[in-house]
């Protein structure tokens, strides 16, 4: 039986608590200037890190919707993930000149 406690509750817990840890990590590396957004390579990694979180949340949500039989929602999330992946790949390929 795919009830709330087996589907969306773990999802909320995972990305609620884990997302908080992720945000704290991002805050620390930005505040400590370990991640310098004025550097192009660092900005790329900044986008990759955020994309990664969105990707995991998306793929987890996609399969949960699919398991619940809500194919439309799953399909929309799948398309968004594909679009974001393509966007990220093209952004990383098109490096500006003099990138550091």
């Amino acid at each position, binding site marked *: 039986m795919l009830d709330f406690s*087996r589907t969306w509750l773990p999802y909320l817990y995972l990305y609620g608590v884990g997302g908080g840890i*992720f945000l704290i990590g991002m805050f*620390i590396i930005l505040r400590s200037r370990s991640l310098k957004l004025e550097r192009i390579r660092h900005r790329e990694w900044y986008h990759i890190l955020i994309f990664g979180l969105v990707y995991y949340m998306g793929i987890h949500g996609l399969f949960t919707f699919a398991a619940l039989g809500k194919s439309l929602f799953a399909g929309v999330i799948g398309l968004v993930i594909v679009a974001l992946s393509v966007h990220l790949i093209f952004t990383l390929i098109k490096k500006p000149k003099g990138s550091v």
Partner: protein
Amino acid sequence: MDAAIQTSSSFWVIIFGYFALVLGFGSFFARYNKTTQDFFFSGRRFSWWLITMSIVATGVGSHSFLKYSSKAYEHGFSSTMTYMNDWFFMPMFLFGWLPIVYYTKIRSIPDYFQRRFNSGVRVLATIAILGYMIGYIAIGFLTMGKTLEPLLGLDLYTIIFIVAVISGIYITFGGQTA
């Protein structure tokens, strides 16, 4: 103990062929291990993608296939959070821990603790890691034994002993290069 599962001869050819290939590979590259630098880091001569594959292969073991399959059967889709949570520590890993490892060229985590604090902290860190590794390796051997038990029809502890001996020889002579 249950009776051994009936298997075809091609199954055993694949299994023994795989182990022969892996052990042969390790034995071949063992000749390049001259110093501790070679043993632990393969002389720092490998490409990033090869090191990445090695890290993934280190993290995935017999326990991965047994434990996570079991958890998925028991708890359904929520069991995926075991691996889905890896991304949360990525910011701190990429821009916190990794630059320290890379630029200071530390050889191990206890080495880091010695440089950062003192040799006493290094000993404590080593004990903590060893405690963790005993459990980690033990669960690896147990799950490997559980996997092979119905296939070989041997006693669990006999299988664990054989696997431990083979793994020990492979690691001791092959090092990180293997």
